[in-house]
């Protein structure tokens, strides 16, 4: 006897579990049972599980009966003509929704030619073995599967139109591509997810060739003329927020132009863009250090100094201003209230991003690269018909990575651009490469996708035929403008006196363990010392006890707190980190003596 459970509740037993499940499935297909109900016979546990709960992942499959698909050509024809609807197929038991548990009882064929009598279901298409993002790559069956996963991670970084109401939103780190396009080489999934409503890339003309060595190591060369005409231009939005906080004692922040009395007043120039309400006007061109929202806060430690000084009562300046290296145009200001009822001011900064050297681009086939050169259009190679590529891509990126799909998309894009049609590049079900070549030949081009090109600089004809075509390229969100960083001197950490970390705070660039090894291996000993001089200090050491001595600035003499001032005290240069180590050892009751020797 096999136990039967409905939504994990025991409801009865069955004598012949297999027949039971089979019979009930037939009933469901007939329409006598709800379509949401799934049956599973778990042979190992010997129990039948009926499930109709919500929240299960279910997927549609074509029902097979006796090795024959219930979905006929006529059905497909009718579907195309709109005579029948998907729901009808589901109701008639031609298409069935199966959940994860019932799938265990199914034997699913992927392609038509795989179907045998034992199969119970068939996939709607082979593409369903891929996920949402991986199925966006056209001709993915022509490339390594492992690349597909990495590649889909990159598509998420592509700039596009993340939301159509982006002008009204205040999101952080937003990039909008200026002229996003629908890919010429589409996948079935592009239609499913309405990719045409939020495209993330542009169709460009690509030539696979080298160019003066500028595109070695995956670098790509952009056509300056294409960039000037708006190729891959994007806007970067960054919000700034502040609120009028309430403090103890009924004190409130005040958003206004601070007057000169305020503690921490910057300079008149920094406040010049503020309007009367203390908020910058929309459309203002702001540069680094400029104040966006003027704000005054009450004194930090209220009451503490009140009786002693008048100065303590002075209000603090707490304006929102741009960091070092930032600039842009004020795009929108927003005045509202937050959950606590405090006045909230938000400002959105806009920044136009024209492609420049160091920006990251990628095709949909893990062929990512950095712009290394914006070549003037007159120097760029041109084809017989006068076409100049937008991007020059290095052929060395192909053999070791085996991304043949990249090459096929070039032909597919070329055919699409020439014939004015979208090309279906759905993985496993795409327009075959053979057909693409035939079409290309018909359109008057060489069927292998190559063309004769002329050197843009000398005008000479290239001996080799250049493989070129159209392709969908993505601008990735990693742009140099957000990453470029250098510093000479700047902020240091309080504890170690070493430079602080991070670009946003103007931190230093670390010479790490391995970089140190590099200096040592070159024998550049003194250069290494200089590089580590950032936390250099001079300390006084008592030669008697080997501990740190004290320098008295008023009396201009040094003395040892333990041995007095009659001992010999010398000044020694060391890193502050080491001084800190000595202090910490002392805190552990360890006595670290410094024994001084003669240097010369």
């Amino acid at each position, binding site marked *: 006897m096999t136990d039967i459970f409905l939504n994990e509740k025991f409801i009865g037993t069955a004598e012949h579990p297999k027949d039971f499940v089979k019979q009930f499935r037939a009933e469901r297909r007939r329409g006598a049972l709800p379509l949401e109900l799934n049956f599973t016979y778990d042979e190992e546990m010997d129990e039948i599980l009926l499930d109709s709960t919500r929240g299960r992942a279910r997927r549609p499959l074509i029902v097979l009966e006796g090795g024959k698909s219930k979905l006929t050509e006529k059905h497909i024809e009718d579907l195309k003509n709109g005579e029948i609807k998907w729901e009808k197929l589901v109701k008639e038991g031609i298409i069935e929704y199966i959940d994860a548990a019932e799938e265990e009882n199914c034997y699913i064929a992927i392609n038509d030619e795989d179907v045998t009598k034992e199969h119970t279901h068939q996939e709607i298409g082979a593409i369903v073995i891929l996920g949402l993002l991986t199925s966006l790559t056209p001709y993915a069956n022509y490339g390594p599967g492992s690349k597909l996963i990495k590649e889909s991670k990159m598509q998420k970084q592509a700039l596009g139109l993340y939301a159509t109401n982006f002008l009204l939103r205040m999101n952080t780190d937003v990039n909008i591509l200026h002229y996003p396009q629908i890919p010429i080489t589409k996948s079935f999934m592009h239609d499913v997810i309405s990719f045409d409503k939020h495209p993330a890339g542009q169709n460009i003309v690509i030539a696979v060739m080298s160019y003066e060595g500028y595109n070695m190591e995956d670098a790509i060369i952009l056509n300056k003329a294409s960039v000037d005409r708006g190729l891959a231009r994007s806007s970067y939005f960054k919000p700034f927020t502040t609120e009028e906080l309430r403090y103890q004692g009924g004190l409130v922040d005040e958003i206004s132009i601070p007057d000169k009395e305020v503690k921490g007043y910057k300079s008149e120039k920094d406040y010049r863009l503020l309007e009367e309400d203390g908020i910058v006007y929309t459309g203002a061109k702001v540069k680094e250090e400029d104040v966006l929202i003027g704000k005054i806060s009450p004194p930090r430690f209220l009451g503490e100094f009140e009786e002693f000084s008048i100065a303590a009562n002075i209000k603090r300046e707490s304006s929102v201003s741009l960091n070092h290296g930032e600039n842009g145009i004020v795009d929108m200001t927003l005045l509202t209230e937050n959950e606590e009822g405090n006045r909230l001011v938000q400002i959105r900064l806009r920044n136009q991003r024209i492609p420049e050297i160091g920006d990251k681009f990628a095709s949909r086939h893990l062929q990512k690269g950095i712009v290394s050169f914006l070549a003037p259009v007159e120097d760029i190679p041109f084809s017989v018909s006068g076409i100049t590529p937008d991007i020059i891509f290095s052929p060395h990126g192909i053999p070791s990575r085996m991304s043949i799909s990249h090459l096929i998309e070039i032909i597919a894009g070329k055919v699409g651009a020439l014939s004015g049609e979208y090309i279906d590049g759905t993985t496993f079900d795409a327009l075959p490469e053979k057909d693409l070549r035939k079409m290309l030949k018909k359109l008057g081009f060489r069927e292998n996708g190559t063309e004769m090109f002329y050197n843009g600089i000398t005008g000479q004809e290239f001996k080799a035929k250049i493989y070129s075509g159209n392709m969908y390229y993505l601008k990735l969100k990693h742009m140099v403008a957000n990453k470029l960083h250098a510093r000479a001197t700047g902020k240091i950490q309080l504890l170690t006196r070493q430079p602080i970390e991070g670009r946003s705070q103007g931190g230093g660039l670390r010479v790490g363990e391995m970089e140190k090894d590099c200096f040592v291996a070159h*024998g550049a*000993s003194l250069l290494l*010392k200089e590089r580590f001089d950032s936390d250099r200090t001079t300390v006084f050491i008592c030669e008697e006890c080997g501990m740190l001595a004290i320098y008295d600035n008023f009396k201009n003499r040094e003395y040892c707190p333990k041995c007095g001032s009659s001992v010999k005290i010398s000044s020694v240069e060391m*890193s502050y980190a080491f001084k800190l180590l000595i202090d910490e050892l002392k805190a552990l009751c360890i006595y670290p003596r410094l024994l001084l020797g003669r240097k010369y």
Partner: protein
Amino acid sequence: MTTLPEHLQKELEEHFKKFKPNEKQKQEITKRIETLYEDAKIAPGEAIGIITAESFGEPSTQMTISSFHFAGVAEMNVTVGLVRLIEVFDARKKPSTPQMKLPLKAKYSKTSEMVKEVSMKIKETKLGDITEEISINVAKGSIEIILDKKKMRDTDIKLSHILTRLKESFKTLTLKELKDSISLKGKDEIKLSELYKLKEKAKTIHIAGLKGITQVLPIKDDDGYVIHTAGSNIEDALAMEEVDKSKITSNDVFEIAKVLGIEAARKAIINESLKVIKDQGLDIDIRHIIFLADVMTRGGVIKGVTRTGITGEKESVLARASFETPMKHIINATLIGERDDLNSVVENVIINQPVPLGTGLPGLVMKSNKK
């Protein structure tokens, strides 16, 4: 008078004999070679330690874990790649896959049957391998061993040999030969739990072959048959008549040090690391490997590049503390009042002084003209 080392001088003499240059040419050749030799010497203050370390470090980041297997080809599972390299440099006591290569003397490898025979002699046979069953007879309080006749014939082991081995191993028990089994019984009654332990011990009794050799694989190469083994036992392999003693190799560095001495172990470290590097298609200069092997074996025993090995023997407290287990080193240094002379790289980086290498090494001595 030449500054060349002895072996170069000898080599030069040989070439002179071969090509017979005249006296003037001889002088010129010697002079030029001397210059080349002097140029090839490492300059004082060159950071050979770090260069060696980085020469291993950088390529080892490129090592791949994947190894290829071929269907139908007799292969043995061997640790390779970075894992093996770490094993060698850390001086692990036992390699994860010990291996030997035993070339056979031509005399004993005329036919494949002969080779098979030798292979069987090398492979370790335990009692458990040639018995059908070892069981406890609860009623009699004895252990009964039923032998597998076929396997005995295959491995060429006589019953008498098994009996003597059993007698040697179980001196307190009495042996009784039955029709097709052997019975082991104590003089007094043995507890059941004891009996069970004895039964388990009986299974692992060494009957024949070399101890520790779990697998043998004879492979024919250009110079005759070589038996590859899983498991290493150099000492017993050396005692075998059939094996060409001068060509035995093993990947167990510690065993080599024990049996053949530290110089052989040094060579073994070089060979083992070279094998890994070549396998991965990388190229590290042999001198780096030699240098590392020298450092690892210079004390007469093998020391790994670990906190218990050569790194832990650094003179400077700060250098040791900055590697691993800093608290341990600082506490110990405090207890015995250790002194750090700041003679090496790491400690000078810590206190921000020029490291005594390269341009930081020489000091300038000047005679002041007092007047």
